[in-house]
């Protein structure tokens, strides 16, 4: 069974970064929402519902935003799947449109982190891994060390992910960091969880991104005649409890999320022209691309170092600069990826445009659960 696609009528975001205390979660969300509504030419009265993805925003953050934006009284729902929260809100909006419940939905991903998170994010305190001392950076460091041992990959090849994504970010005015970095800078950065250093890690960020999704009736309501980029389908899976002592980087959860995406969208993996990938850490981009089946297992590091995943390469990954450079306000990231894919599919991404982009994939992985291969994984397939 496939659902009808969701049409992207408008997108917008604020530049990710570190904002002072007076730039609240609500203000950031309203800023991104106004950009998206303006891009869609949508008056507030045309919006049927508000779906908000966030993690640290506290109870009914979406309703607090609605009361600032002028969508008070509307159906508002809050969606938490850790770093996949924004993409989960987009999935639920897609389902509601396909079901005929709504025709115009505003989705916002938002996070205010810099005033409430320090030293890195970690699992829920009740999770056994947290009690043992797991932090996200450590999990990816464990992945990296074993990946190097199993595949003969080098530290330099893994660091090349950061060099590549920062090179892309130079062309993204919405990125927290917009300057190139050298391989030596990545290798020489302060160690966080060995072998990974500071520049292997996405930053702690504030930010918001918003998307106006429509049914065909919704497009008519907004007076949009021509074709617009579409969300064809959004896969969602959660991690499985692992058994045995197999391949640490099997990324079966990514494989399953990919299978969901291909099934729901009708798009085959070899039709994907670009990927916005959840590079919360350098090694994560490599093993997740492999798990999806878009890069052969064990070759992702070499592919990166050889330029195959750079702009102009055979499969550009993170033309936006990725989480490493755009920043990672966790609940906003999934929405920001869809904003980027929309710009890419419209052909308006400027210096970071992927030539001839017709079909794109956005991947988020959120959270960890003891004994499993992940928390939540989302896969958004879009086409122009």
């Amino acid at each position, binding site marked *: 069974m496939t659902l009808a696609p969701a049409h992207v009528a408008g997108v917008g975001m604020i530049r990710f970064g570190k904002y002072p205390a007076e730039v609240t979660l609500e203000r950031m969300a309203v800023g991104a929402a106004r950009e998206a509504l303006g891009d869609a030419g949508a008056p507030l009265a045309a919006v049927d519902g508000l779906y908000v993805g966030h993690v640290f925003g506290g109870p009914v953050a979406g309703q607090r935003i609605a009361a600032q934006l002028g969508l008070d009284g509307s159906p508002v729902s809050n969606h938490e799947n850790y770093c996949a929260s924004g993409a989960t809100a987009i999935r639920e909006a897609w389902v509601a449109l396909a079901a005929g419940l709504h025709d115009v939905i505003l989705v916002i991903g938002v996070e205010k982190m810099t005033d409430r998170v*320090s*030293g*890195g994010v*970690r699992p829920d305190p009740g999770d*056994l*891994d947290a*009690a*043992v*001392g*797991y*932090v996200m*950076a*450590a999990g990816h*460091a*464990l*992945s990296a*060390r*074993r990946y190097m*041992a199993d595949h003969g990959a080098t530290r330099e090849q893994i660091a090349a992910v950061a060099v590549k994504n920062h090179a892309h970010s130079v062309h993204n005015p919405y990125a927290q960091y917009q300057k190139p970095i050298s391989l030596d800078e990545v290798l020489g950065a*302060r*160690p*966080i*969880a*060995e*072998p*990974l250093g500071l520049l292997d890690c996405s930053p702690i960020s504030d930010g918001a991104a918003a998307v106006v999704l429509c049914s065909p009736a919704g497009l008519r309501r907004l007076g949009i005649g021509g074709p617009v980029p579409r969300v064809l389908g959004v896969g969602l899976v959660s991690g*499985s*409890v*692992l*058994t*045995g*002592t197999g391949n*640490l980087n099997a990324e079966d959860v990514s494989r399953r999320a990919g299978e969901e995406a291909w099934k729901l969208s009708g798009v085959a993996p070899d039709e994907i022209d670009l990927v916005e990938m959840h590079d919360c850490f350098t090694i994560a981009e490599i093993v997740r691309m492999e798990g999806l089946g878009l890069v052969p297992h064990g070759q992702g590091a070499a592919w990166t170092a050889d330029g195959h995943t750079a702009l102009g390469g055979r499969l550009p990954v993170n033309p936006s600069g990725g989480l490493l450079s755009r920043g990672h306000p966790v609940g906003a990231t999934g929405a920001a990826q869809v904003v980027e894919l929309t710009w890419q599919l419209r052909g308006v991404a400027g210096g970071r445009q992927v030539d001839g982009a017709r079909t794109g994939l956005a991947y988020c992985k959120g959270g960890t659960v*003891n*004994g499993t291969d992940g928390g939540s994984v989302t896969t958004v397939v879009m086409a122009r």
Partner: protein
Amino acid sequence: MPREPRPFREGLLTIDPPRLHGSRCSACGVTAFPAREFCPGCRAPEGIQPVELDNEGRVHSFTVVRQAPPGVEVPYILAWVDLPADDVRLLARVEGDVELDMPVSLALTPFDDELVGFCFRRAS
């Protein structure tokens, strides 16, 4: 009067002798740690028995954590430790030196001022 030492989580480990406790499926033999009420191997919802895990393991991967949220003292070594006798992989701290594929043995370590946790150390 000093209190009896207690593990940081009930059912996870015992102190004398030091052992980790998991569960084993009586249908397919898959061992889980920590113990679960279903079998993650064959999905059996019943016939799950408590089991003491072997104390001997091997470091499958490790990292030295040098930055952590406030209140967590760094640096420390975190590792994936494989227990070949049980075909179980678990996350644990390693104390002392560490290298890839190093044989390790279970040890007890203070979890906080009151409770007892577990770690692994190079096998003697």
